[in-house]
């Protein structure tokens, strides 16, 4: 197996732009890796060999003609199958979209293509991003490269797994309640949910519109920052897109200096319900942060214990409306149209056959929460709790520069373990959800393995809105110390995959 697959994205970009290695060679190395290991990992739903090689060849042609390249030109990437891709299947992990080929590109995809990033294919996910394990994909689960019997997190398990299995150095995820950060934590990779409005949502199939945000996944902080800088920025096609300059995340990742910063530990996100090994690695990180010259204080966010409940009202409510369009009329599969049934019957059968049980559960829940007579008690109340969460963050950021917590309460659990217990599954996102509720940027950074199971643990870093650069500064400072301590990347400690 070529050693190209173990290189960082920044390094690969340098090799391609200097002409030392062709983008086609880089793409082929990764396509070979996918062919070798993805049967076991199942990170990809669709591999676009021809498209990847042609995009790589176009980069090579630019290298030859001396054209200026963008920072990540020629670097391969896995794209979560929730982003619309012109001419490439887009399923959202759902039968209802099996075979649909969008006639347009998401804005993020356009930016990736313009940057010469080579899209290898579409990555697996929980159906319509509803889940924390990727087990709710209609096309079968993705396996955690650290232990194939375990989940890779979710909903973006395919994106985190393809990065940590060295199938791609970069991936795009989307994060509604933790779907970038929690998978990053349990696979030992880096993932960032940018400030809401920082990355265009145009062309990203909506789960909960007021919470969804696309972001970068990679194996280190600098690569993540570089991908962030490619996909971020104002988009007139997304009304909620922020029209101000993107923070200089690459410079922040290179700065890696937290001396004199104030870091807050969120009292409510830790302790009971958090695995011992998660706690111990988190405590070590706190000590490390202090050793780098930052001041660490505890802050309280008293409304956070209600965040999960509020989230599981807002998300299903918005999702029940967003998913109404999947009716078998304009696109996707249609079921039961035998020429005698009414359109209402055919829509109902199409949706029953096309959606999995978790999607149906959440649509019904959202329909209930928005119903006349229940709106104020459920959806309306949840939106007020949202205000309280935002106020907690505002008060905390009046005292500190960034906040930290464990990303997830546990390391990767076994496939099947929580599948029949939706409430237990929802608890995975207890620490990541408040960030989405307030629209803030958050990062998950690998901070070691839990002693009891040898599985990765993630640190969550949270910054104020539009201060995404702080995540990269803090993350890079911690990462530098940990790499020195580990003698290399954490992922180097992952077991070699069969077939590789």
């Amino acid at each position, binding site marked *: 197996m070529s050693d190209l697959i173990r290189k960082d994205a920044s390094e690969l970009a340098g090799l391609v732009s200097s002409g030392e290695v062709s983008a086609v060679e880089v793409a082929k190395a990764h396509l070979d890796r996918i062919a070798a290991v993805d049967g076991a990992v199942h990170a990809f739903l669709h591999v676009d060999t021809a498209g990847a090689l042609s995009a790589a060849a176009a980069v090579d042609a630019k290298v030859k003609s001396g054209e200026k390249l963008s920072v990540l030109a020629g670097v391969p990437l896995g794209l979560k199958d929730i*982003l*619309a891709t012109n001419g490439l299947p*887009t399923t*959202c992990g759902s039968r209802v*979209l099996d075979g*649909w080929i*969008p*006639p*347009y590109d*998401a804005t993020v995809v356009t930016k990736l293509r313009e940057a010469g990033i080579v899209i290898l294919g579409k990555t697996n996910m929980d159906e319509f991003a509803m889940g924390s394990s990727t087990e709710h994909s209609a096309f079968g689960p993705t396996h955690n490269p650290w232990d194939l019997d375990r989940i890779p997190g979710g909903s973006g398990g395919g994106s985190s797994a393809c990065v940590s299995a060295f199938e791609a150095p970069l991936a795009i995820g989307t994060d509604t309640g933790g779907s970038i950060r929690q998978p990053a934590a349990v696979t030992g990779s880096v993932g960032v949910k940018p400030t809401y409005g920082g990355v265009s*949502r*145009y*062309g*990203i*199939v*909506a789960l*909960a*519109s*007021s919470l969804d945000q696309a972001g970068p996944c990679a194996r280190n902080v600098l690569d993540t920052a570089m991908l962030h800088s490619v996909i971020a920025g104002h988009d*007139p*096609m*997304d*009304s*909620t897109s922020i029209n101000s300059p993107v923070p200089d995340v690459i410079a922040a990742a290179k700065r890696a200096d937290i001396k004199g910063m104030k870091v807050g530990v969120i009292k409510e996100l830790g302790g009971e319900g958090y695995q011992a090994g998660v706690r111990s690695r988190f405590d070590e990180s706190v000590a490390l942060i202090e050793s780098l010259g930052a001041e660490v204080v505890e802050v309280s966010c008293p409304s956070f214990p209600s965040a999960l409940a509020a989230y599981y009202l807002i998300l299903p*409510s*918005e999702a*029940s*409306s967003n998913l*109404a*369009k*999947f*009716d078998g*009329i*304009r*696109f996707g599969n249609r079921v039961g149209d035998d*020429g005698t049934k009414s*359109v*209402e019957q055919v*829509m109902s059968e199409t949706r029953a056959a096309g959606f999995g049980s978790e999607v149906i559960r959440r649509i019904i829940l959202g*329909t209930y929460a*928005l*119903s*006349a007579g229940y*709106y104020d008690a459920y*959806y309306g109340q949840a939106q007020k709790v949202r205000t309280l969460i935002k106020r907690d963050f505002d008060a905390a950021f009046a005292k500190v520069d960034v906040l930290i917590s464990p990303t997830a309460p546990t390391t990767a659990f076994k496939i099947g373990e929580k599948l029949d217990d939706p409430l237990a599954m929802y608890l995975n996102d207890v620490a990541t959800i408040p960030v989405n509720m307030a629209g803030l940027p958050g990062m998950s950074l690998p901070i070691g393995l839990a002693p009891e199971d040898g599985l990765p643990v993630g640190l969550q870093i949270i910054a104020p809105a539009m201060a995404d650069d702080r995540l990269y500064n803090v993350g890079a400072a911690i990462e530098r110390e940990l790499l020195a301590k580990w003698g290399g990347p954490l992922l180097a400690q992952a077991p070699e995959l069969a077939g590789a």
Partner: protein
Amino acid sequence: MAEAIMNYDEAISKFDPVLGLEVHVELGTNTKMFCGCSTVFGAPPNTHVCPVCLGLPGALPTLNKIGVESAIRIGLALNCEIAQWCRFARKNYFYPDMPKNFQTSQYDEPIAFEGYLDVEIDTDEGRKTFRVPIERAHMEEDTGKNSHVGGATGRIHGADYSLVDYNRAGIPLIEIVTKPITGTGKYAPEVAKAYVAALRDILRGLGVSDVKMEQGSLRCDVNLSLRETPESKLGIRSETKNVNSLRSVERAVRYEVTRHAARLTAGDSVVQETRHWHEDTGISTSGRPKSDAEDYRYFPEPDLLPIAPSREWVEELRATIPENPAVRRARLVADWGLSELDMNTVINSGALDLIVEAVDAGVDAAAARKWWTGELSRIANDRGIELEELPVTPVHLKRLEELITAGSLNDKLARQALEGVIAGEGDIDAIVAARGLAVVSDDGPLLAAIDEALAADPAVAETIKSGKLAAAGSVVGAVMKATRGQADAARVRELLFEKLGVSE
């Protein structure tokens, strides 16, 4: 199937009608409410569509600024308050002509609210004004168009399947809803019609829509209920849709009054339901009952940000609101000393704005009206163009009138001067000079021409002298012809009588 009805007069003697009108107007913007697709009518099916208005997965709405401005201007023209802050909401229900299976609309935060519109109708006691209270005007989007295939009638019932064209989906709509209109008594049908007509005139004056009821760019739903007396609580209402002409508005109200009255008198209750109006038969038929299953699950649209119009912006828009057409008409009738009939002629000719413009520039109102509804209307009509397309300005008319008053042009010469203007020959003075248009005011040539005319028809002089003064017309005509119209006809007549020694 037709239902029992009661004679209208009898119905009104027993019950007090309460009206409610919901008008949907399609805005004449260039693009749809939430995407850049064209709104032009009549394009091939599914060619004015994009991922947004087709509701494809991942697409997001963006808000048309002119759509919002139009909504605010409509609100202001209807004497509404404009919201300081409002949002869009999603109205969730499934229907195949609605691509997202929710309509992006406004729910409890309309952009305009609490207005009114005064309408005038003829009553037994003369013209009378009714104030129609307006609850709200809000923004939303239109649906696509279904056509039904198979079955006997090509209508929805009994069709085998339907075909959907989404070109119309997403075209901006403003929905204008009245509060319950009470106190109309037997004039409910007339008030309803007058309201829709007045609203149409206002919308046309604002230039926000082509307001063509027959093309569906103005659509009206009529809500009606009856109660025993004006003191009773409101009765159960029916909602009649598809009322697509002014005449139908009046007829639908009248029909529903007679239908409700028959039911109530027979001891049946009115069913709260949607009904469809049939223009051809003049009746409504029952549609879908308003069941409690209808739960739209409104919630704030997360993909569109709130609208918070600044007071400055609202005042800027207020400055663009033309005077209420009904108020303006009444004012002009008084100012110009016209009859209602004269005014109707002016309005039907489409010349009102042009006349106002001329009057504002100092042209006499009667003269401006004469030119625009007379000679210029004829020319425009002959050429098949709109009056506005004629290159005639108030400056032209003003100068023309000055020359006529001074006696240097007569009516015929003035018309020739206008022809010159339309032919692009320059300003009035230049045309008069170039075409040699001037009334011959020197008596010498006129007297010579009179002599010639009398010589050519020797009998006429005696006829005139015998008192048949009307015979002078042929002499005057001959003189005018001889001078190519440049004589002052009155002066010719004066000189002729002087010469023949007769007096008028």
